[in-house]
C-alpha cells in the first residue's frame, strides 16, 4: 500500500484514536502529523509490513506515552473531572448524556497507559495480542492494565450510583 493511499484510508481513524488516548484534539493532531511525516520517510519498510496501521498506531502511542509534559495532560483531565463533579447530582439516571460525560471524565484521569489499553480494546477492538504489540509489552501486562482500568472505573461508577440513590 502506498503512503498516500494509507493516509486517505486511515487518517481520520488515526486522529480519532489519538484524540481518544490524549483527550486533547490539538495534541492529537500534532502527534499524528509528526508521526505521519516520519512514517513517510521510511514508508518503503512500513508499507511492506503485514499491518502498517498497527505499526503507525504504535508510533502514535509511543509519542504520546513518552510525551514529557505530563502535567498539562493531567490538568485537562482534572478540569474535566471537575466539570463532571458539577453535573447535577439530581440528574435523572436515565440521562445517558450526563452518564457518558461522567464516564469520559473518569477515563480522562486514568494513567496514560491504562487509557491507551482501554481505547485500543473499546475503540479499536484490538485483541490482547494486538494491544501488546502497540504498547510494546506482554499480553499479561495488557490484561493487568485493562483490569486495573476497569476496576477504577467500576469503583467510581458504584460511588456515583450510590450518590444518585440507584443501584446498578
Amino acid at each position, binding site marked *: 500500500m502506498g503512503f498516500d493511499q494509507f*493516509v486517505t484510508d486511515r487518517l481520520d481513524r488515526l486522529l480519532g484514536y489519538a484524540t481518544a488516548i490524549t483527550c486533547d484534539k490539538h495534541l492529537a493532531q*500534532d502527534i*499524528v*502529523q509528526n508521526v505521519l511525516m516520519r512514517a513517510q520517510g521510511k514508508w518503503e519498510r512500513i508499507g511492506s509490513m503485514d499491518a502498517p496501521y498497527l505499526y503507525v498506531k504504535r508510533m502514535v502511542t509511543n509519542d504520546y506515552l513518552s510525551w514529557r509534559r505530563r502535567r498539562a495532560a493531567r490538568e485537562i483531565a482534572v478540569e474535566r473531572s471537575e466539570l463532571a463533579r458539577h453535573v447535577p447530582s439530581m440528574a435523572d439516571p436515565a440521562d445517558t448524556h450526563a452518564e*457518558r460525560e461522567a464516564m*469520559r471524565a473518569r*477515563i480522562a484521569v486514568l494513567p496514560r497507559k491504562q487509557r491507551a489499553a482501554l*481505547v485500543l480494546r473499546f475503540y479499536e477492538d484490538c485483541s490482547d495480542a494486538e494491544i501488546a504489540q502497540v504498547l510494546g509489552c506482554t499480553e499479561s501486562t495488557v490484561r493487568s492494565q485493562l483490569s486495573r482500568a476497569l476496576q477504577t472505573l467500576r469503583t467510581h461508577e458504584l460511588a456515583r450510583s450510590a450518590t444518585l440513590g440507584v443501584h446498578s
Partner: protein
Amino acid sequence: MNDLIRQAIKAEADERVDSRTVLADLHKAKKRKPLGLIVGVATLTAAAAAAAVIIPTAIKKTDASPAAQTPAAQNVLLIGTDEYHRTDALVFARFEGDGSATIISLPRDIYVGSSPDRINGLYMQDPRKLTDAVEQMTGSKVDHWAAINMSAFGQIAGIVGGVEVCLSAPAKDPLSGVDLPAGKQVVAGDQVLAFLRQRFDLTGGDLDRTKRHQAFLAGLAAKIAGDKAVMMARSVREAIQVDQGWDVVEFAARFQGPVKIRTATLPVGEAVQRDGTSGFAVDPAQTKQFVEKQFNGEGPVRDECVS
C-alpha cells in the same frame, strides 16, 4: 458498564479535528521541506522574548530588591521550544541597563561552522553546545539563556486581552483560522495564535512569520506593566527554564515600565545540504558585523506594518 465506556471513548474520539485540515497541512509541509519541517506547535518567537521580560518583572515586584546601581547590559539567548522540547525559535537578545532591548531572530536551520548539526538541534543535546555555537557564530558573549515552552503563550495572550499590531494587507487563511483586515488593530483571543501561527500563503514564508512575531512582541512589551505582569509570570513560570547562576532579580531591576524593543532577523546565506538535511550557511564575518551593529543600536528601525 462496557457499553458506557465504549460510548464515552467514542464521544472523546469524535472531538478529533477535521482530517482534511491535517491532510492539507501534510501536503504543504511536504512542499516546504527545504525550509525545514515546520509541523505541530507554532513557532512563537515572541513568547520566548516576552517570557524573559515578563518573569523578572514579576519577580522584581514580589521581592522588591532595591537597585543600587544601573545594571549592566546582558546578552540573553532565548530558546522557544515545542511540547517535545525541540527548538522552534531562537532569539538572541541584548537587554540594556535602562530596560530597552534589541532582539535578533536567528533562523533555526543554520549550520554553524562545519558542524553537521543545524543550530536547532543543539539545545536538546546540551544547552551549552547551543550557547557555544551562538557565541562562535555571532562573536558576542551569551551571558545567560532561557528556554520556554511556547504552548504556554496562549494564556499570555489571553491575559493581556489583546495586542496592537499593524498589517499591510488583510490576512485570511482557513488553515490557521486567521481572518484580519489590513491596518492597525488589536488582535485578541483565538486570532492571536492564528496570527502567529499562519505560515502558509505568506509570500515570505517563515521570514514573514518571524516579522509577525516581532511585531506582536513589540506590541506585547508595550503592555507589560502593573498587575498583568504578575499574572503573566504565573502562567509562564512553569514553562520556563533558565541557566543556573542567573540572578534574575538583578536582571529585573532594569525594567521600570513597558519595555522598548527593537527587532531584526539575522540574514542567512545560501541553502546547503549536510547529511541529507538542508539548512543555511552564514557568512561568519557578516554575521558578526550584523550582530554588533544591532546590539550597538545602529540597526534599521522596524517597519510599523507587517505583511
